[in-house]
């Protein structure tokens, strides 16, 4: 690190922001695919898909930014995670491909429509599971030697990562159903109100299981949380409060708050995870500083980002504004 000052914390913040942006934004549209098989009828499926059609591409771009940003700022993460999760990454990408093309093809299909509904749904579920498994693998840690992954092909697939994968599916489904409460009306919205509590119950169950399992598995995490009382306990409290807010909003039949509260659950859980593991970014061996790229590379990109990201956020917000309001049945776009 020979730059004038240490950019690593700033970059950790930027990448962290990019990841949570991705999780929240692609989460609600992947959630539509997870909920697809359970929807009441074809018309509802059309509306669900229409509610995310204009924005999904932009949402997925945050994933690409996550990949490229890691390569730029913390290359070690990129070059250990991807080989370690080799087969999982393939599942993730295949899933994203099938659901991505389903957006274009399903609207144009007549007799083969059900095929693309399946493609959308199975693709979304696989991609979500793989993302959950990535989180699980991060908590588990990686076998490395001399800055290279040396573990096996299936180290990423353990009971623990299966649990985090399933938890992610429940979580994205919850984001998806609260998004529907916000964006739809009538019978579809009523259905979304009905399934949301069930999804929340699943999320809570996984949340508790992971919270017990992780400290048992990793002494460092245990020490962090239990050796002395610290402020990080505010994070799970925040997550629990968000859940309470969500339940109350559902009872009062509020439309916007459930979605916001669900995002709150995700943000607090995410920060809690970061608080458990950081500064280890390729656990158990390497910290953020071990994984960082050259200072001048971090600086070169940072300068550009400071100019560009505000514009990106502005026009992204603008497109959401253009497509604001309720999505109605039969409002076919294509």
């Amino acid at each position, binding site marked *: 690190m020979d730059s004038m000052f240490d950019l690593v914390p700033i970059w950790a913040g930027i990448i962290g922001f990019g990841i949570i942006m991705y999780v929240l934004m692609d989460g609600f549209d992947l959630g539509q695919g997870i909920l697809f098989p359970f929807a009441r009828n074809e018309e509802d499926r059309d509306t669900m898909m229409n509610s995310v059609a*204009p924005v999904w*591409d*932009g949402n*997925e*771009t945050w*994933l*690409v*930014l996550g*990949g*490229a*940003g*890691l*390569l*730029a700022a913390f*290359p*070690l993460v*990129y*070059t250990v*995670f*991807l*080989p*370690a999760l*080799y*087969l999982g*990454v*393939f599942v993730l*990408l*295949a899933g*994203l*491909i*099938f659901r*991505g*093309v389903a957006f*274009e*093809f399903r*609207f*144009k299909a007549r007799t083969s429509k059900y095929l693309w509904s399946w493609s959308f749904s199975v693709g979304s579920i696989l991609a979500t599971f793989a993302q959950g498994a990535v989180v699980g693998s991060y908590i588990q840690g990686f076998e490395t030697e001399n*800055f*290279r*992954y*040396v573990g096996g*092909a299936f180290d990423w697939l353990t009971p623990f990562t299966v649990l985090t994968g399933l938890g992610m599916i429940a979580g994205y489904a919850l984001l998806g159903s609260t998004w529907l409460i916000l964006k739809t009306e009538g019978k579809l919205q009523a259905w979304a109100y009905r399934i949301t509590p069930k999804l929340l119950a699943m999320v809570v169950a996984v949340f508790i299981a992971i919270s017990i399992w992780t400290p048992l598995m990793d002494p460092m995490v245990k020490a962090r949380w239990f050796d002395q009382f610290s402020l990080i306990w505010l994070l799970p409290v925040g997550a629990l409060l968000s859940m309470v807010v969500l339940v109350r909003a559902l009872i009062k039949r509020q439309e916007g708050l459930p979605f916001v509260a669900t995002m709150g659950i995700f943000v607090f859980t995410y920060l809690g995870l970061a608080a458990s593991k950081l500064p280890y970014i390729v656990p158990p061996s390497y910290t953020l500083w071990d994984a960082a*790229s*050259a200072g*001048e*590379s971090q600086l*070169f990109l940072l300068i*550009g*980002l400071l100019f*560009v990201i505000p514009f*990106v956020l502005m*026009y*992204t917000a*603008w*497109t959401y504004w*253009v*497509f604001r309001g309720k999505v109605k049945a039969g409002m*076919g*776009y*294509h």
Partner: protein
Amino acid sequence: MELDPLFLSRLQFAFVVSFHAIFPVFTIGLASYIAVLEGFAFKTNHPTWTILSRFWTRVFAVVFGMGVVSGIVMAFQFGTNWSNFSYTSANFLGPILSYEVVTAFFLEAAFLGVLLFGRGKVPPGIFLLSAILVAVGTFISSFWILSANSWMQTPAGVEMRGELLYVTSWSEAIFNASLPYRFVHMALASFLTGGFVVAGVSAWYLLLGREVKANRAALSMTLWLLLFIAPMQAWVGDLHGLNTLEHQPAKVSAMEGNWETKSNVPLLLFAWPDQEAQTNHFVLGIPGMASWILTHDVNGVVPGLDQVAREDQPPVWLVFWSFRIMVGLGLLMIAAAIAGLILRRNGAVYTKRWYLRSLTFMSLTPFVAVLAGWFTTEIGRGPWLIYGIMRFEEGLTPSLQGWMALTTLIGYVVVYAMIFTGGLYYLMRILRDGMEHPPASEQEEAPEHRAKRPLSAVDVPFEEGAR
């Protein structure tokens, strides 16, 4: 049989990147075309332009969708199969690829949403702006990705310290020696692709007598464009070759099938390069022509493959033939454009069936030429991953086993075959539906949108609509 992860990874990379590449070349050209159509529509308010634009936007949506999903795969290939390469070059490639995402991909994605779904939801001026920004985004994107690729061909501005490359000069690294040529050559290739596809489809509709007015307009417009850019491409390609001669002479030797350093080198029209014997069989050539093209002197001395150790030579026959396919098709394109100019007198371009039929066939040639061009460039770089710095085998992921690479290779082939079939099928459907009858879903939305259109487009300046 021993499964070689290196060979399988190369095969996989070649497959996924070739698959990806055919979509961007088309969407880059088509995006500009749609922006131009929207511009005409905005200025003249003539329905012909809107009909054309709506139609091509529907095609665009399908192709772009496939470009995006196959591109996402590319972003992760570097890490999964080439992690040592990524680790070594991250200080340069990381920022470059990130700049591509933040300056291009977000722009394309956001305004694509508006272009596809926003007709009638935003004022016409903003709609036009969205079409333009999507087109601009595709060029920004090609700039960065071609900078990355050109840097792998002609690396500059970096220094190896230990295992890692460090950037010593960003401007030298980004604007490396082959970037200008590659960027212009690729931009022209995209216009040629967009142009020949639009010309081919319009010709096909004219053969069937459908939407004659709009298709005549489209055909005339694109033939003018092709008349200028097809010859320009040959000229830029020649400059590109001279640049390569300076920086990667081995590649040019392979392109020319020239084994011996000598003067008065013939331009080979046909030959069968034999790497074992380091010579050619069945040679047919024009004497002195290669010397003349490369040195502007029939007696000029041209370096041959004898300058390069055997293990540093690329597979010659692949480079040799890919190059010939590209150039051959380039010449065919020039011929097609000139024929169009000649037939223009007395309007025969619109009616001569043989010409319209050959244009329909020509719409496939740019895709072949583009792939052949990339094969020349990439295979000719071998055995180097980063020219002169890192070889293929050094870049491979160490933990990658043969069966893993084989699994994902088969996986990608299967997945891509499925979506490619689907995509082709829907494109054919769009073509059969034609421009006259917008699909059912669009008819449904039409009344609501049409009610807004005349108001916002004709009577009211667009600031009014922008409230």
